[in-house]
């Protein structure tokens, strides 16, 4: 029993916190669904939340860890949605119908095609930097959107959109949670592996990374491909959840929405991306239900004001000392300090320079003298030993 406790203590809980949190919510909501206590609107919101978590976690890989600004994430999603949706239409006429197995096939196709698109957009990323790359990714998203919009009605439905077969609504969100866990598993393990370290090294200093022997081409492409593949999976999920794929949805505003989730979550922070994706989706849906009719436009005003306020609060250099006192992290730290019995001082973190590092010269000299003495008079040393 004690060894088990000891083992539990040794696990780095920090590494598993995301799985545990997502897992608990998944189990909780699954039980509630089969208990029959969840209304259809909540189920729909859960689908949206899991989809947005997938998108923000995958974009987090490119923006937060690879350090490249991408404004075309919805483009990859669009590719996935159309590819997966089309395959679902074809499969629904076969023996497979539209069960879980056909979903898996659609998902694989969506991931592969979107990943290939990610490879294509990763190529310019090797030559372009910062805002130039951002505009190229934006351009890619718009090109994809335009191509699908102008497709013939037999292939992808053209401007009308593609109607995809209905999926059993009851447990679609469980698949969503499973996909989130899969994305977390792949991306978190990637980041903590040697390859992930290489990716973050490229973000921190590309030239230094190259000088250390990191294959920048390979890792940049790897980052883009994995991120795009998960966006494609999210797209397939979208086509199953909405039963309807229309290219207009996947415009640059959608990409920006996903980027907002990543930035508000704190770039390079997967837990943050999950939390902010959840909160933003809930906020959007709630505002939509509260503000109906004439007041519906107020939703965008409130959303925009909240967005500006949060970003300024989180990033303004002038608010730094204020922020250090009033973040959730500082709050938790203060609470822990209180429990341990020592008063918490917000400045402690910043005061590494006050830590005593001076060596007491008298002590050093006295030690040296003793050594000198002992070497000069070995006989006396021996005596004292006895």
């Amino acid at each position, binding site marked *: 029993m004690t060894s088990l406790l000891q083992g539990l203590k040794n696990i780095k809980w920090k590494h598993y916190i995301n799985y545990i949190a997502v897992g608990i919510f998944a189990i909780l909501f699954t039980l509630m669904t089969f208990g029959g206590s969840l209304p259809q609107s909540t189920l729909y919101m859960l689908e949206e939340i899991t989809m947005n978590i997938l998108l923000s976690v995958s974009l987090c890989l490119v*923006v937060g860890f690879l350090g490249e*600004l991408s404004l075309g994430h919805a483009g990859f999603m669009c590719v996935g949605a159309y590819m997966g949706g089309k395959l679902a239409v074809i499969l629904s006429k076969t023996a497979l119908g539209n069960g879980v197995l056909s979903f898996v096939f659609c998902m694989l196709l969506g991931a592969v095609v979107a990943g290939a698109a990610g490879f294509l957009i990763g190529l310019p990323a090797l030559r372009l930097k910062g805002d130039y790359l951002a*505009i*190229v990714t934006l351009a890619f998203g718009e*090109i994809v959107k335009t191509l699908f919009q102008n497709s013939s009605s037999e292939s992808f439905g053209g401007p009308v959109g593609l109607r995809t077969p209905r999926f059993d609504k009851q447990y679609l969100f469980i698949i969503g949670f499973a996909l989130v866990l899969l994305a977390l598993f792949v991306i978190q393990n990637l980041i903590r592996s040697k390859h992930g370290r290489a990716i973050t090294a490229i973000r921190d200093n590309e030239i230094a990374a190259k000088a250390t022997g990191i294959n920048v081409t390979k890792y940049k492409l790897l980052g883009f491909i994995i991120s795009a593949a998960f966006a494609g999976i999210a797209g397939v999920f979208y086509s199953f959840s909405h039963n309807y794929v229309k290219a207009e949805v996947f415009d640059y505003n959608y990409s920006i929405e996903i980027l907002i989730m990543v930035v508000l979550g704190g*770039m390079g922070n997967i837990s943050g991306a999950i939390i902010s994706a959840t909160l933003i989706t809930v906020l959007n849906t709630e505002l939509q239900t509260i503000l109906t009719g004439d007041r519906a436009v107020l939703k965008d005003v409130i959303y925009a004001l909240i967005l500006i306020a949060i970003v300024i609060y989180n990033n303004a250099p002038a608010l730094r000392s204020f922020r250090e006192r009033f973040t959730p992290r500082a709050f938790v730290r203060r609470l822990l300090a209180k429990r341990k019995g020592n008063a918490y001082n917000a400045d402690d973190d910043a005061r590494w320079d006050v830590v005593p590092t001076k060596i007491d010269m008298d002590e050093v000299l006295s030690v040296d003298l003793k050594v000198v003495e002992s070497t000069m008079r070995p006989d006396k040393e021996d005596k004292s030993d006895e």
Partner: protein
Amino acid sequence: MDFIITLVNGLSLGGVYAMIALGYTMVYGIAKLLNFAHGDVIMVSGYAILVFLSFDPILAIICATLFCMLLGIAMERVAYRPLRGASPLAVLITAIGVSYLLQSLAQIIFGAADRYVIVADLGSITLGEVKIDVGTIITLGASLVIMMALSLFVKFTRTGRAMVAVSEDRDAARLMGININRIITITFAIGSALAALAGLFSLFRVPTIMPTYGAMPGIKAFVAAVIGGIGSIPGAMLGGILLGVVECICNSTPLAPYTIAIEFAILIVILLVKPTGILGKKRREKV
């Protein structure tokens, strides 16, 4: 003859894009921020003209320009200045927030539907067999004059040279006694005034406005600025004209539905061949 009309049309659309791109490129070069709300200033200008038009067309244009300048200055004060020195992505997100805010405020005040704004009936002139709108000529002429004026302003006035200094090295400029905040405020005022005029000129072309009216021209102007080399004034002009001409030529062919895709594809190709744009300066990277 049809081709000449298309070309002139494209040049005037290019003039509009160039005006917006000039504002984009100045703000980007000097404040080092991607002002996503720049496109929405065009929309605000359109609505401001609509409001003041009942008095007098000339007065409406002046009022709209002044209003947009004030808006640009306010935007910088409230949303961007507190973030001076923060990560560029944070500023990008606030810019997006400001863009949403302007669009939704316009929707609350004026409604989501299209509104017609006919500034003045300027008529058209006939040169040989070609019939050209006076508005088109004004757009083209004004954008050329403004570009030249702006180049001269940047080169020969004290404020203009201070702008160049700030864009090259902000800290060094500050050490030389340049008031950075003042320069950035002036940049925003000029950029917004250009966007306001662009709003006027696009009303000459299509006399309707709606709250999301500025978003796409804003993005295209940014594309134009990048094609020309962001931070370069002649580059913005060149990129804008190029994009306008390409757009009008595409629209007159069966490829019309793919116009946006073609424009963006041109952007990607140009950036792949020359990563800093056509007239952009190559910055050497220090280790």
